[in-house]
């Protein structure tokens, strides 16, 4: 095991993440995991290049090896050995030893090189993959970091990230159009399942679908707060707590929808309007505070088709960059 990176500067949004924990919610641990899985996979694909399996197998996308998730940018890493890294997702200024470099390409770093990630200008979350088997403490087979649960490795300034480096990665790059396809449009349409409501919510759902919301700056990995007109005509107050699914749209008494993300509490008592599709959660994770979102109802069969299309698109992009198919 070799020291790979030294964290030079960091903040609460710099987190080691994989696909998250399974089977831990009954004990009260959240799911955790990378919020924008497609971007995380593309970063991984650039440096590892072992993707894809010849057949399109969507289940593989639910097993992501660790990457560093960065919210808002603004951090620096020093390479402690020769490694290849790639940054995919949000776009912002990247520098190696103060020289500008680009997102979405493999970057070869020598020991002592400093990678600086500036504030993102488009998108909210970037993923940094390293061509190594990263070693980090695991709980329920996952090394995903959750600060409030004190699980996983905290990437605070001064922390070293260790692992076993792999063979030097080939030079690979992600087309600019693909990088842009990962970023949400100015008004992001989110698909949700109205069937997953916890009460007879037709009037509230109609209001939700008509209105335009903004992502609140108070959003985090636990949830996205939406600001807009209140949905309630007559607020319903908390019911008995029930276990929550990822992407659940809660409606607190203030009438502003709250969309739960991967680090949400396992149980909660606010009435629920429905649940977002997984591919909409990935997109929402990139929508910056102040930007707009809309909610669009889908049926389960529609959702399944769109989800398959999302994974198929990702599989094709991975196949192209890793060059195992033509």
């Amino acid at each position, binding site marked *: 095991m070799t020291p790979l990176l030294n964290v030079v500067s960091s903040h609460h949004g710099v987190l080691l993440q994989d696909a998250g924990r399974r089977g831990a919610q009954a004990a*009260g641990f959240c799911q955790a995991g990378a919020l924008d899985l497609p971007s995380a996979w593309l970063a991984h694909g650039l440096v590892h290049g072992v993707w894809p399996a010849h057949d399109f197998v969507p289940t593989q996308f639910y097993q992501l090896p660790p990457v560093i998730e960065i919210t808002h940018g603004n951090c620096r890493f020093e390479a402690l050995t020769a490694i290849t890294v790639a940054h995919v997702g949000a776009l912002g200024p990247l520098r190696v030893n103060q020289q500008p470099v680009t997102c979405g390409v493999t970057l070869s770093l020598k020991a002592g090189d400093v990678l600086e990630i500036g504030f993102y200008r488009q998108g909210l979350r970037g993923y940094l993959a390293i061509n190594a088997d990263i070693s980090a403490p695991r709980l329920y087979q996952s090394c995903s970091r959750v600060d409030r649960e004190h699980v996983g490795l905290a990437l605070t300034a001064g922390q070293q990230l260790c692992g076993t480096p792999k063979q030097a990665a080939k030079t690979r790059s992600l087309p600019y159009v693909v990088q842009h396809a990962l970023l949400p449009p100015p008004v992001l349409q989110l698909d949700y399942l109205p069937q997953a409501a916890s009460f007879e919510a037709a009037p509230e759902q109609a209001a939700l679908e008509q209105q335009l919301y903004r992502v609140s700056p108070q959003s985090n990995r636990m949830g996205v707060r939406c600001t807009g007109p209140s949905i309630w005509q007559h607020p319903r107050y908390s019911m008995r*707590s029930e276990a929550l*699914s990822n992407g659940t749209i809660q409606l607190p008494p203030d009438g502003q929808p709250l969309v739960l993300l991967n680090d949400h509490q396992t149980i909660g008592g606010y009435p629920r309007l429905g649940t977002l599709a997984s591919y909409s959660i990935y997109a929402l994770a990139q929508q910056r505070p102040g930007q707009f979102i809309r909610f669009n109802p889908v049926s389960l069969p529609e959702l399944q088709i769109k989800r398959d299309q999302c994974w198929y698109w990702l599989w094709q992009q991975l196949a192209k960059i890793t060059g195992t198919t033509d």
Partner: protein
Amino acid sequence: MHTITMRLSGEFALLLELKQPNEQTLDATMPAQIRQLAAWCGELCGDAVQEIVPSYHTLLLSFTPYHPRWPAIIDELENACKQWQTEFGQPLCLPGQLLQLPVWYNSNVAPDLASVAHQHGLSTQQVAALHSAIDYPVYAVGFTPGFAYLGFVDQQLATPRHATPRVSVPAGSVAIADRQTAVYPTATPGGWNIIGQCPIPLSPDWCQVGDRVRFVAVDEARFYELRQHPSQWQLEVTNDPAA
């Protein structure tokens, strides 16, 4: 007679709800029934299910994405639930474990003990006696790892949450919110009324929904002794009459 309703909770998730005739009150057998239903669903679904999360009268089943049994398993479960209602819908057979926790009820470690006693016109000794008099079923585990929602304290102890939560409640705090009670397993922000302190550390999986928890009052000397040597305390009660 309880009936089960089932609805979609996410693209790979179902929420089962155990409905009882009177929705306002939650009977004390509910956690044991939910636990039984959880075990039964776990057996039925095998590796198709990833998460089984009970909470009060509900059970969330999260399935393995793209498992070949999804979504056909929805119909399987629906049929199975009908069968469950006829076979088990009545009294239960899985009482869970009886677990005991030591508590020092004293204002030195419990900042709200005096005010809770004062609000209800009781002495602090009476608060301790009432709180440790019953075995509490575990209705849910969540909020933080290992935080168990226990119910329901004597009506005389029901105390609303603080209007403004404390920034940090120490680990081990035994607290009341309305008629619920709990022990904070880790230091977190919290708005519950702290009436005692438990000296032994609690792991995230120290209890499950359907277990019952008994609080045993200890004195100052025993409290510090157990804090030094938590292994002296036996969590499980071996001579459980309900088992």
